[in-house]
């Protein structure tokens, strides 16, 4: 059994490797990595709900959208958030997305299972509808173009600088969410995931726990949105649409729900296949489809479940050998 310490060590090593290797690759790879990392924050927020609380949200893109549209509207209309006030936008983005989650949560948390899925889907589509139809504010179908990235001492227009900023936010989010899920609060979330009724009987206010988790996840979604707006340079209803929510959910499942870093692996794989492999071969969609199908069929615990599987197989085959050794004697 690998201890939690070794796991943390592996993650830290992987992050360090990313920080060192990526800036030395070509600029397109840097761009893709930045996107994958920014989106990973959203995927991790989905994982807090899906993997730790047992709430499969299909409307998480709404919070990304709120953060992204806020950033874009402030930047293009009021020239706000392009200097040191970028940090104000970050805070605002988190707060507004959390506020939206607080409203949506009131409606969604009462439901469980498939019904929760449906309600979050519907709410997410409401946000999409707003983005699509509120032409005067959101630019409708055409979206909003950001003219440039913030500049405060450091110039974020530089892709490498911006990559480090996003990486920084990513690491911070990972740390915060990791602390969250390992805190007593996080433990009770896991308890709710396993058996809500029992938690209720013990005396926990499970509704409140789920509601808070929903709001926190929304806040992280907003942060992802602020970063995404500056990463892509364009915000359009495409960011809020159902497929974006589904993408986030699939990435979380692909990497392994309930692991946080699994979502990142999922994001990197999907972004890699969709944006990089697709430039090399036209049949990339089959590869992506096959990855999804194979993962669901053979790795229900996601890619993060692979080490566990290998260990199981080793112990299993070890046992079999033991059996063989014994077998001749008995026969």
């Amino acid at each position, binding site marked *: 059994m690998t201890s939690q310490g070794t796991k943390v060590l592996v993650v830290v090593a992987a992050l360090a490797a990313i920080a060192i*290797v990526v800036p030395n*690759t*070509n*600029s*397109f*790879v840097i*761009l*893709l990595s930045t*996107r994958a990392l920014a989106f990973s924050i959203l995927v991790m927020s989905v994982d807090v709900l899906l993997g730790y609380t047992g709430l499969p949200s299909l409307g998480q893109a709404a919070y990304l959208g709120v953060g992204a549209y806020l950033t874009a509207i402030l930047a293009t209309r009021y020239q706000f958030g392009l200097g040191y006030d970028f940090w104000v936008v970050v805070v605002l983005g988190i707060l507004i997305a959390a506020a939206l989650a607080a409203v949506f949560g009131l409606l969604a948390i009462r439901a469980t299972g498939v019904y929760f899925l449906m309600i979050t889907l519907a709410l997410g589509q409401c946000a999409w509808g707003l983005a699509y139809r509120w*032409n005067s504010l959101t630019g*409708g*179908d*055409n*979206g909003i*173009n950001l*003219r440039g990235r913030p500049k405060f001492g450091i110039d974020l227009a530089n892709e490498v600088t911006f990559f480090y900023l996003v990486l920084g936010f990513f690491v911070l989010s990972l740390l915060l969410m990791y602390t969250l899920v390992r805190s007593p609060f996080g433990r009770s979330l896991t308890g709710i995931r396993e058996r809500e009724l029992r938690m209720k009987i013990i005396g926990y206010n499970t509704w409140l726990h789920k509601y808070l988790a929903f709001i926190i996840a929304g806040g992280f979604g907003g942060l992802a949105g602020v970063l995404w707006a500056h990463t*892509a*340079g*364009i915000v*359009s209803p*495409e*960011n809020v649409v159902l497929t974006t929510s589904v993408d986030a959910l699939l990435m979380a499942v692909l990497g392994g729900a309930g692991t946080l870093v699994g979502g990142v692996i999922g994001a990197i794989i999907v972004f890699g296949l969709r*944006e*990089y492999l*697709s*430039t090399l071969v*036209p049949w990339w*969609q089959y590869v992506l489809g096959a990855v999804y199908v194979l993962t669901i069929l053979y790795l229900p615990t996601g890619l993060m479940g692979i080490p566990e599987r290998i260990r199981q197989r080793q112990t299993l085959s070890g046992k079999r050998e033991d059996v063989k050794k014994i077998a001749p004697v008995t026969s």
Partner: protein
Amino acid sequence: MTSTLLRRLGWPLLGSVVALGLTAPANAAEELRIGFVAPTTGIFAQVGKDMVDGFQLYLDDVNSDFGGAKVKFIVEDEQAKPDTAVTRAKKLILQDHVHMLVGGLLASSGYALAPVSTADKTVYIAPVSAADDLTQRDLPKYPYFIRTGWSSSQPSHPFGQWACDQGYKKIAAIGADYAFGYEVIGGFQRAFEACGGQIIQKIWPPIGTKDFGPYIPTLRQDADAIFTLMVGPMSLQFPKQLAASGNKKPVLGGGTSYDEFVLPSMGDEVIGHVSALQYSAALENPKNEAFVKKYRAKFGKVPSYYSETNYTTAQMIHEVIKNNKGNFPGQEEFIKQLAALKLDTIRGPVSIDEMRNPVQNIYIKKVDKKKMFGYDKDELWNTVIKTYPNVNQFGQFNKEEFLKTPVYSRDFPPCKFCN
């Protein structure tokens, strides 16, 4: 990881190639890299195919040789999503080091790609994406942007005048609910009302509407004609349901409603419908006839405007590169020379105005069932019934006054004669 490794190994190789290129004589064959963004998957994949086929056909015609430069044509899938378009454009610029970007289908893709061209100082040519403001109010922001296709409202301006000339007084409009729809209908309304007509109704069904049952009965009975602007599958469904409802009024439409892209799949109910665009596959000139036959023989379908505009764009790029003896003259110079071109193309004479939008013929076309170009079957064709020569994007209007008004939208021009 393997790819990074490969790239590491690739650098010295690339370096030596560049070094070789520097030492080679200046007139040696250069490689011209053209990055092409079009939707090749998703619901717009077939349109994307027409775009790519049109461009490819021209390359095949000249054997990918632009005045000595070997053309490397790199197609990327934008999936008709602005986000994806940006990523793919970045890939083309950063990884393939293309000399120019060409393509983009929807207005949203055009709006997304133009800032990329500014940020990365790369030429962006839009053969299809027609969003008005790219070559109007927003132009100063995009110094490396040029259009070889059209702006959405360009055919609508002469078309509105034509509708007046037919004696129509009141027209009800129904169009897809997004920017392109607003611009096509807005242009028509401005022109039609400027010559005394009245738009008495505007209905906006959402994109992808499959059932027009709720909309058709609400069309006002006192209208002399109906103006429609449909895209994709909507173009097929609307005329069917309109005919089924027993409509006897004349039907006018934006160019994309009856473009050859959808025309072969349409039924006889569209015969007599009139639309306006800068191209019709039924144009009777030798260039077009040869183009239609060649295209049809190769791809098994009649070329749409998407095919023609990309073919012509390739021709324009060829012309500029040829004038520079096979060298790419640099971004500013390329834009300048392209904008100065006057070419006789398949769609007729094309030049480019000072706001980098084409000045070209606008054809008023009526759907007809007939034999054309020696094909032995009766088919639907967009027969040209009137030609407005050399129309620019402002049409009959004064440019300065035009630019002072806002871009066409759901609420502009206001519907003064509704209710």
